[in-house]
């Protein structure tokens, strides 16, 4: 038997009352993949992410992380960067990054002291320098621009060396120029740290630029019942690695049409 996939979904469904959000989601994500998740609003992209995060439990099906059943609540093995509110407004940039080390090393006081604090601060400072925030160690998040806040959120998540990094429309609120810089940064960090990333985005171009694989969520069936009885699932799964077959332009056009009908 080969090593289990890093992340494994088998026939997962999420249902609230009689409303089915996701169904028949089966998937295996390999170590080192950069998976982009796209789909129209309400197609269950965020639910999919919350499932991996452990913020929500599947109504049916099985989810494994590294061959083990997924813990039913968020933990340090799954890092996350949200579009907003990802950093703590009452902590300086440095303290935001040290936070994870504080929690690991000081269960009771939640705050490292002495030489251990110095070591943690050194590690955090290096990481902050790597994401381009060495000038902002003592600033509060409110004093940082949107792009800098997301850099901080990424550094904060990376210090815990998560097995999988989840990004929930992380660059959605940023200006185009800043977004481009962030694309460069996340790609570099992904390579340097050998990360496995799952990123939800509504930007198809971003999905294909960054990902080694693009998953498209949508309702596969017609809406004759108002879409209630059927949930979304993975309707397209494009591998983008070297040697993968090229994406069929017609399929791509269909997808584009579903994602933003206004611009098609």
């Amino acid at each position, binding site marked *: 038997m080969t090593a289990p996939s890093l992340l494994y979904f088998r026939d997962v469904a999420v249902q609230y009352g009689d409303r089915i959000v996701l169904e028949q989601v089966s998937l295996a994500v390999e170590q080192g993949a950069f998976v982009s998740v796209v789909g129209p609003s309400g197609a269950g992209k965020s639910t999919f992410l919350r499932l991996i995060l452990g913020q929500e439990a599947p109504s049916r099906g099985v989810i494994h992380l590294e061959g083990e059943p997924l813990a039913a609540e968020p933990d340090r093995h799954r890092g996350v960067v949200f579009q907003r509110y990802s950093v703590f407004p009452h902590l300086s940039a440095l303290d935001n990054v040290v936070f994870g080390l504080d929690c690991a090393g000081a269960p*009771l006081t*939640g705050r490292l002291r002495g030489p251990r604090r110095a070591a943690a601060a050194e590690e955090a400072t290096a990481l902050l320098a790597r994401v381009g925030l060495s000038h902002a160690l003592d600033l509060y998040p409110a004093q940082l621009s949107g792009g800098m806040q997301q850099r901080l959120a990424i550094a904060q*998540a990376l210090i815990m060396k998560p097995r999988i990094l989840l990004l929930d429309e992380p660059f959605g609120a940023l200006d185009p120029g800043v977004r481009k810089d962030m694309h460069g940064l996340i790609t570099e960090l992904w390579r340097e740290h050998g990360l496995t990333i799952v990123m939800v985005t509504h930007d198809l171009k971003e999905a294909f630029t960054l990902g080694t694989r693009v998953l498209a969520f949508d309702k596969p069936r017609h809406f004759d019942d108002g879409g209630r009885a059927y949930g979304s699932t993975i309707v397209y799964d494009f591998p983008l690695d070297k040697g993968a077959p090229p994406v069929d332009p017609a399929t791509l056009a269909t997808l584009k049409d579903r994602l933003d009908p206004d611009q098609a």
Partner: protein
Amino acid sequence: MKRLLNIRPGAGGRFVLGAAPVLVALAAYAIASQAQHDANPAEKILPTFQAMARQAGVMALQVDPQTGTIPLWQDTAASLMRLGTGLAIATASSLLLGLALGLLPILRGTFGPFVAAVSVVPPIAILPILFITFGLGETAKVLLIVLGVAPVMIRDLAGFTAALPSEQIIKAQTLGASTWQVALRVALPQVMPRLIESLRLSLGPAFVFLISAEAIASDVGLGYRVFLVRRYLAMDIILPYVAWIALLAVLFDLVLSQISRRAYPWAHPAAGR
């Protein structure tokens, strides 16, 4: 010509505008009380400023031969002791319960309705119960303040804690934080400025409960004195006392707001820059 709602006074203008109503009220009082005094020097309802200053001097500087103490300071000390104890208990319990109720759904389900029910009971209506149960001593007075302000503060803080962005709470957990660490490092520091704000808003009601309790059963205190001298229509004592109470309240409010600005600069971004 600009619209009225777009005309903003400068710093000096604001000071003049703010001081104007106070000065007008003082001047109007001075004229009215002088006219009354000229018509009838024994008039007690509108004492002149001189009369009030004289009485204030007596209360604040002269030892009362019956008690051997200076009334204003003795009253102030007794009242502030009650107020301080009551507010300290209310603040500590609202911080603890507010955090717990806001963070833990189990506790919110258990105690939320209870706190909500308690907070709609008019505290003054409980005062007889307190006097019957705890006697006429300090306990009942302090408890009235606690029961009067704590439920509102608890609900405010629990609501504020529960309204912290869920992204922050999730993020903390993905960084390995336990429930205790989330409470200590994420919720507590962010709740502190709100606690101070809540305490500032509670100062007014707390004074109301203090003075009510003192008026009904006490032998010392600001409220006791005001209601005692009411029997002699001693407006020349009542008005300086009321002014003194107002001054104390304003002072506490200022101190609390300064503490919040100093200790939690991130919560006051406009002032920090």
